């Protein structure tokens, strides 16, 4: 896979390659080893503001239930809560989604899938941590198999606390996310790229079986 670069000025960092040490030599041929680079916003400010307004009003949520909180996502589309009216839509594939909701506890095994899905999403991308378990572990704070602080592994734009938060809380969270996107405060993808080494070190500390590329293009 090649990477199509909208910002050709950043190409110099592409000279450094990822190691992809977790893959066999044969698999390394199949995966892209380019280092992700941060992306600048549009040079004209009003264009960027316009696009932020559009992004805020067309939130495509990845339909990926990571924990018990996924059951709170389903009522969102029903006639009682109807998230469609706020421009929130479910997309079945990470390539097309722009919002990842980590719903509740995430075990180490799920964290691996969360990272893969997050990296395959195309920026700008936003992460909502739903439930107390994503903030400090919640009732699973001393479990041998669940992570405690989600923002050490992927950049989180918004936390919604509770165990579990009701769909109303999730809708309020969407409103807050929209406000932050319109204000231009959600640059999680760029933070992820800038602190790439820190995030990868944290991820590899808990995920011992690292049989995927270092960045899933």
């Amino acid at each position, binding site marked *: 896979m090649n990477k*199509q670069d909208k910002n050709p000025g950043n190409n110099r960092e592409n000279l450094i390659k990822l190691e992809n040490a977790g893959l066999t030599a044969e698999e390394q041929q199949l995966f892209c080893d380019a280092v992700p680079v941060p992306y600048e916003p549009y040079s004209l400010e009003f264009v960027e503001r316009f696009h932020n307004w559009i992004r805020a009003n067309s939130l495509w949520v990845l339909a990926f239930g990571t924990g018990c909180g996924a059951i709170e996502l389903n009522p969102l589309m029903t*006639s009682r809560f109807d998230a*469609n009216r706020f*421009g929130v839509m479910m997309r*079945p594939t990470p390539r*097309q989604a*722009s919002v990842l909701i980590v719903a509740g506890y995430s075990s180490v095994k799920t964290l691996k899938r969360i990272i893969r899905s997050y990296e395959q999403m195309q*920026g*700008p991308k936003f992460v909502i941590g739903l439930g107390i378990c994503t903030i400090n572990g919640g009732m699973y704070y001393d479990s041998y198999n669940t992570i405690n602080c989600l923002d050490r592994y992927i950049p989180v734009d918004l936390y919604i606390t509770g165990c579990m938060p009701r769909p109303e809380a999730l809708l309020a969270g969407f409103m807050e996310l929209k406000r932050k996107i319109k204000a231009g405060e959600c640059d999680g993808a760029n933070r992820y790229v800038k602190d790439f080494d820190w995030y990868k070190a944290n991820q590899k500390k808990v995920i011992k079986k690292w049989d995927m590329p270092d960045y899933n293009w």
Partner: protein
Amino acid sequence: MNWALSIFYYIVTVLVVLVYGLLLYAFIAKTMARVQGRIGIPIYQPFLDIIQTYGRRTAVTHGYMFDLGPVFRLTGGLGTLAFIPVIYGSEIFGNFHFAGDLLLVMYFIFFGQLGMALGAGESGHPYAPMGIARGLAQMTAFEVPFALAVIAVFMQYETASITEIVAAQQGSIYNWTLFTNPFAVLAAMFAFLGMSMYPPFDLVTAPNEIPIGPPTEYHSAYLSLLQTNRAIFAGAKLVLFMNLFFGGATNLPIMVLKTWAIYMIPVLIGVAFPRFKVENSIRFFLGVPTLVGIIAVLYMQYWGTV
């Protein structure tokens, strides 16, 4: 009329049909939401979605065919539209009609799907070839009644020009193909159900089993192109069916009314039926609809009146 002007008129037609197709999609989504007791998406939501996907900062390509897939798809949509007179007798919406345009339009309907199949096949996602295999199999099946219906229309009007077919239907509602050749219309409407991707025949994108089929790996600007084409292609197909079977349109409000009514047929059938499997779908199209198509041709051969 010189070439520059007609190309300008064509661009106007494309933009009108694009806006109309997106509004139609939003309107139907809104209607269904109201039926379910929801408020539903804002009427301008499809426009926001297109700009949103276009405004993504990153894009990943999987190869040249992957890049060309959406381009082929859009070419199919634009090509289909280019040879269909959207409004009969209008200079602006007349497009590049010529003596044999119906044959070319039938090729263009296929063209986009094949291009998309090549592009999605290179994306490497296992769901993409599954969706393509289902889509091409089903398309081959519903193409049979559709082709039979079009042959019956050829025999009836003894021409392959859409403009002349529309002209022959003017004057009275009883001149429509719907009344002069009902079997052909029935066969073609069966095929239209298959074309329009609504529930009994939406197994190509089947969101619950093969997430969304061929466009699984398409994102950012690629997806933006596909969304654009979806609106244009839907509009072009509706206009084609309106021209062939429902008397065409002489002005824009009539066109909007008739295409909306035609569009409601698959929507209403879609909300009432669950999804077919691919083998059921193919058997269905090769059964009753094909039989009706054969009857339409025989009817025109032996009892038809021109």
